[in-house]
């Protein structure tokens, strides 16, 4: 029992230290957004321990370096082009963030589909596969990877037919918006993958790639976290929750799991 308690105390103290020195910047919601992608790679990784990543007052922190994507593991070139165009349509570049592909969202999706989850390792995939009621939920033999792979092939076939042999990545921006809108509204019929299943899967993956910890290859420069004012995964608030009540608590540089070395 003694050992047990000591271990817990050490764990507590070790992690408690990581929360120290975080500077909160009040009242800056939405203000002074910098281009997080421009910063990516321009700064060295924080030293082991990651404490330096937490800004001291008046000090501009070094953002974590997100490793550059080393190509795709799962996607072929057509799929990669489709997904990059898709995430750039959902997450366009503007003053709030860079576009999805530059934020690593397509890389995130590629890695997820190649993972055990993407390959259906955590799903119940025994038959028979019978279409049920909406209340019974997903009832297909398709894994997330199958849904995206087959769905892209089918969607691109429809796009080629409709847009003079252009694929989704070569149509205009306005046409892309129209196609995504039609997919979302179930106005484009696909043969094997039901359109809502395909759209929801790719939509959810794009959202996850935008918001998940940069550890997974997306959300580069913690772009979405900065956009929302999310302080990252390392903050602890037991001594802040009362003090900051009804005041926007912000840090200059949100901390990702990677930043802790």
């Amino acid at each position, binding site marked *: 029992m003694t050992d047990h308690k000591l271990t817990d105390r050490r764990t507590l103290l070790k992690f408690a230290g990581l929360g120290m020195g975080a500077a909160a910047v009040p009242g800056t919601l939405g203000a002074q957004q910098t281009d997080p992608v421009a910063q990516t790679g321009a700064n060295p990784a924080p030293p082991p321990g990651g404490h330096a990543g937490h800004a001291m007052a008046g000090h501009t922190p070094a953002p974590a370096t997100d490793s550059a994507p080393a190509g795709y593991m799962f996607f072929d070139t057509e799929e990669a082009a489709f997904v990059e165009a898709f995430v750039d349509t959902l997450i366009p570049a503007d003053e709030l963030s860079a576009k999805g592909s530059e934020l690593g969202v397509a890389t995130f999706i590629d890695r997820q589909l190649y993972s055990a989850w993407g390959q259906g390792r955590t799903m119940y995939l025994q038959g028979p596969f019978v279409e049920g009621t909406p209340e019974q939920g997903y009832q297909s033999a398709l894994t997330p990877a199958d849904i995206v792979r087959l769905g892209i092939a089918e969607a691109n076939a429809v796009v080629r037919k409709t847009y003079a042999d252009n694929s989704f990545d070569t149509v205009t921006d306005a046409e892309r918006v129209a196609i995504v809108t039609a997919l979302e509204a179930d106005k484009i019929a696909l043969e094997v993958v039901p359109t809502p299943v395909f759209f929801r899967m790719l939509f959810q993956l794009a959202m996850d790639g935008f918001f998940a910890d940069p550890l997974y290859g997306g959300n580069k420069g913690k772009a979405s976290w900065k956009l929302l004012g999310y302080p990252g995964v390392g903050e602890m608030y*037991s001594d802040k929750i009362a003090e900051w009540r009804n005041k926007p608590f912000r840090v200059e540089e949100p901390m990702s799991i990677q930043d802790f070395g």
Partner: protein
Amino acid sequence: MAVKLPPVDVVIVGSGWTGGIVAKELAPTGLKVVMLERGRFQDTSPDFAAPQSHDALKYSRRLELAQDLSKETVTFRNDASQTALPMRQYGFFIPGTNVGGSGAHWSGLTWRWSEWEHRMLSGTVEKYGRSIIPSDMHLQDWPIAYKDIEPYYDRFEKVCGISGKAGNLRGKIQPGGNPFEAPRRNEYPLPPMTAAQSMVMFEAATKNLGYNPFPIPTANCSGDYVNPDGVALGQCHYCGHCTNYGCEANAKASPHFTMIPLARKNRNFELRTNSMVMKVNLDSEGKRATGVTYVDARGREYEQPADLVVLGAFVTGNVQLMLHSGIGKPYDAQSNTGVVGRNYAFQSLGGARVEVPRDTFINPFMGSGALGTWIDDWNGDNFDFGKAGYIAGGGISAGQNSGDPLNYHPTGPGQPRWGAGWKKAMADGYQHSTGVGFQGAVMSYRQNFLDLDPTYRDAWGRPLLRVTFDWQANEQKIIAANTAICQQIAAEMSGKKASATPAPGRLIPGRRFSSVPYQTSHNTGGAVFGDDPRTSAVNKYCQSWDVPNVFVLGASALPQNAGRNPTGPVGALAFWAADAIANRYLKRPGRLV
């Protein structure tokens, strides 16, 4: 062919709260006790070390600590006319796995149920007569009164270091607490947690409306704490990574560090992980358990003989094991006979979105699993539900759980779901929206039940458990009434007119129950405790009527569900049953009733 192991005195199936409590209570008796856990070994360090333990994708989305659905799941249908189909990916509930079970990654709301919630049948009949109870509703009292279980609630609260404010201390109503609370002998072990912005707003709004807000009793410690067993719990960090996550600070009470290490200090206790129990073995007459058969990680099969078997799996696991083993008569809805699988209930969860003024800041990332403020004014029998036209009600609350953007990036109704406009709306909404939610009671019915699926099998070839469940008229009324009250409170909080838009992702009043969105893991029933073997699977000590050397613990014993979380009763009942086993059963093995 199973390898036969040397016999032991007691086998405990599952290492969650119920199994953990029984293990800790029985290990000092000197009996040889073996605990079988289907999942792997885990402990606070290194498994829940931060910051890795704050990985939202891994824990809250991919559900790292949940049962592996590829091996076992449930099938679902709304009614007996449908063909049940498997839950292929996670939906309405998330049962845990690994050491600590669901107790390692729960939220921490720890209630004593109200006095009425222990005697819903008698309490209802006394006030309204029998005619208020629909003919298909299986309303049942607990076989024990609140005063019998009160000392065990007290023990569980002290183990967990529950943070809260007493509302009823030995019959005296206390300011700041829940005035509807059942009388308690002691204050909570720790004071309430620090309120977040949404809670302050909820408190003011509900007071304005004439309700009685109070802090939710939580197993997230408001301060450092050493429990009566000498186990240290840390202060909650309000880090916003709680529900579905393990806690690096041991601030969220879990059996993996409060119960299991204490049991393991006894040489006669053994924890075997990666041990999936297939069935309880019975003698040739089916009157006595001879042990269990389980499979290890490699797929090797073992027979573990034992004199006493304690089932401490999840609700679904307990019922499934009883049905696979032939313990108790399976429930048949058609003839309304049998008991195993009878009285399955769930819970309704809904609410309203609150858009707050732009000079108000929520800081949604400051939160914990159970951080919230609650009203009980529309719950239990604290109001005239007969006049409202239904039985029981719901608890209503606001709080802050997690602002991790992976799961929380709210925008208002009618806002775009993607594109530049969406990004703008989201950047605006993150600090300026919150919610009011309700947790509705669900009664038990003839037509809502658990049995074995005729088609789908688990990884070991056993039939999956089949869930047949739908909202009935009573529950639809509770959902509609509580949604309206949430909207009233939301309007008061935001200073705007009540919006008719329910909180997204949850249930919509008037619709059938859907197994698709996650709602709560608060399943109840299926192996109900009671005084009558025709309507209960286990007696008041959670002992099987038919196979007296089998005890079945947990929320499977609860005859119907209340409008609040069940972990308090689950913990208290485990202490109650462990007491009966240690002090009565072991002295004279046999039926205790």
